């Protein structure tokens, strides 16, 4: 690990005032950042420890939703009684991720900012436009079993690894930040992560020094909530395909549908065409097939991840059956 300067922030305002300089990173749980620092994939010159800031509570909002402090550990959020009752898709997504030890340490804000698990991103001897811009992409034409099939570019086919973020995308969460100049910003989760395009090293819309302080959930949505994750092991593995689904059926027709997908793209994937294919229709395999066609119309495999396209189709149909049974 490269050495670094370390400072503990006393307030969020002090953290952002100090956080914008070149090579500076915030550290909270540290479970992903330190992993990458040991491999010298990340080499920050300075770490600002935000783990003691007063951002670890979950509170009701005036709008009837929930405000989640950026430092709430994944374990506590999954077990929170309001999350379990009103946002079970979020509890289920969190519980499907990582291990008990990691969930105790990993923070809500850090989970959103975790980096891809692309093998070539981790291997500093490989070409990777995300780790070393302009060096190429060893995953395209390489072993790409875990890579993306939607929204890829000729620069990068990495996926975002979070389960939590997929549930938050379906729940239409808002990321609340504090900027270096002291202004607050509210960013829809759908707009928070970027597709790779020509700049796969820039993964979110955060500005230098901008700190996530909270994630807000709107009031509990109508309908049934399901998180389904398909992976290579029964526990403690990243998703090959995952789906967070929230569907309400009224008078025999689908009244509303929110579906977000993990394991398929560089960000939690939502596609209005999938939901449009369902709303107003009678639940059943005919409508579900149209939705799957919409989801995968532009899907493209890269060899060893071709299987994800039929897998995503089957997983979507199975999830929709469960949501509307």
């Amino acid at each position, binding site marked *: 690990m490269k050495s670094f300067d370390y400072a503990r922030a006393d307030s969020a305002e002090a953290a952002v005032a100090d956080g914008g300089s070149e090579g500076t990173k915030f550290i909270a749980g540290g479970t992903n950042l330190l992993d990458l620092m040991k491999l010298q994939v990340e080499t920050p010159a300075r770490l600002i420890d935000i783990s003691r800031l007063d951002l670890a509570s979950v509170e009701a909002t005036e709008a009837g939703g929930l405000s989640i402090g950026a430092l709430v550990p994944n*374990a506590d959020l999954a*077990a929170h009684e309001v999350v379990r009752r009103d946002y079970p898709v979020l509890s289920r997504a969190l519980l499907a991720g990582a291990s008990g030890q990691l969930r105790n340490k990993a923070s809500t804000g850090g989970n959103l900012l975790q980096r891809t698990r692309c093998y070539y991103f981790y291997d500093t001897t490989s070409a990777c436009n995300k780790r070393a811009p302009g060096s190429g992409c060893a995953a395209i034409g390489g072993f790409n079993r875990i890579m993306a099939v939607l929204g890829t570019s000729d620069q990068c086919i990495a996926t975002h690894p979070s389960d939590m973020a997929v549930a938050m995308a379906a729940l239409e969460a808002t990321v609340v930040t504090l900027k270096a100049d002291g202004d607050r910003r509210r960013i829809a989760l759908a707009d928070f992560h970027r597709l790779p395009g020509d700049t796969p090293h820039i993964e979110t819309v955060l500005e230098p020094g901008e700190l996530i302080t909270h994630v807000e959930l709107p009031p509990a949505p109508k309908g049934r909530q399901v998180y389904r994750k398909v992976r290579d092991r029964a526990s403690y593995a990243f998703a090959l395909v995952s789906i967070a689904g929230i569907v309400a059926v009224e008078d025999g027709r689908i009244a509303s549908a929110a579906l977000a997908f993990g394991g398929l793209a560089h960000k939690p994937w939502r596609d209005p065409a999938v939901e449009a294919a369902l709303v107003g229709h009678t639940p059943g395999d005919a409508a579900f097939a149209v939705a799957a066609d919409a989801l995968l119309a532009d899907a493209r495999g890269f060899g060893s991840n071709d299987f994800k396209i039929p897998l995503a189709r089957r997983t979507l149909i199975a999830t929709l059956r469960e949501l509307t049974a």
Partner: protein
Amino acid sequence: MHFTINGQSFDVEPDIRTSLLDLLREHVGLTGTKKGCDHGQCGACTVLVNGRRINSCLTLAVMHQDDEVTTIEGLGTPDDLHPLQAAFVRHDGFQCGYCTPGQICSAVGMLDEAAKGWPSHVSESLDDGALTDEEIRERMSGNLCRCSAYPNIVDAIREVADGARDERRVGEEAAA
């Protein structure tokens, strides 16, 4: 830097990069906690920080100066084993023993999580934390055992979990 480990105070000045795991093993001589993968994948380094289980390899020592750290050495002694240590011996819950300190620290934290009613990925309902064997396996999935002593590890943990539950029930009946 000042640390509180197993109730004892330590003043040491490690390099800023020192993980909590390396602090324990290299700076204060507590080698019970083991280094397996050093990347949070195997669980051999599991310790309790303020009563919660974490991977000590994936956190900086400097970030834990105000915390209470408990390692395997703080749970029991050869003459006075922790109930989980005794159960691991009784059920032969190991072969080489390298993962065992992490397994036991993890199980202590896990049983506390279950006692608080926290659900897991395999819980049928999010309100149900009953510790079936399937639940124990899922909740302990962050601890690998290359000797594959898993069936006996589950037996040892189940025995302690059942004992704690029975004790709680006796206590509740006595109180009633």
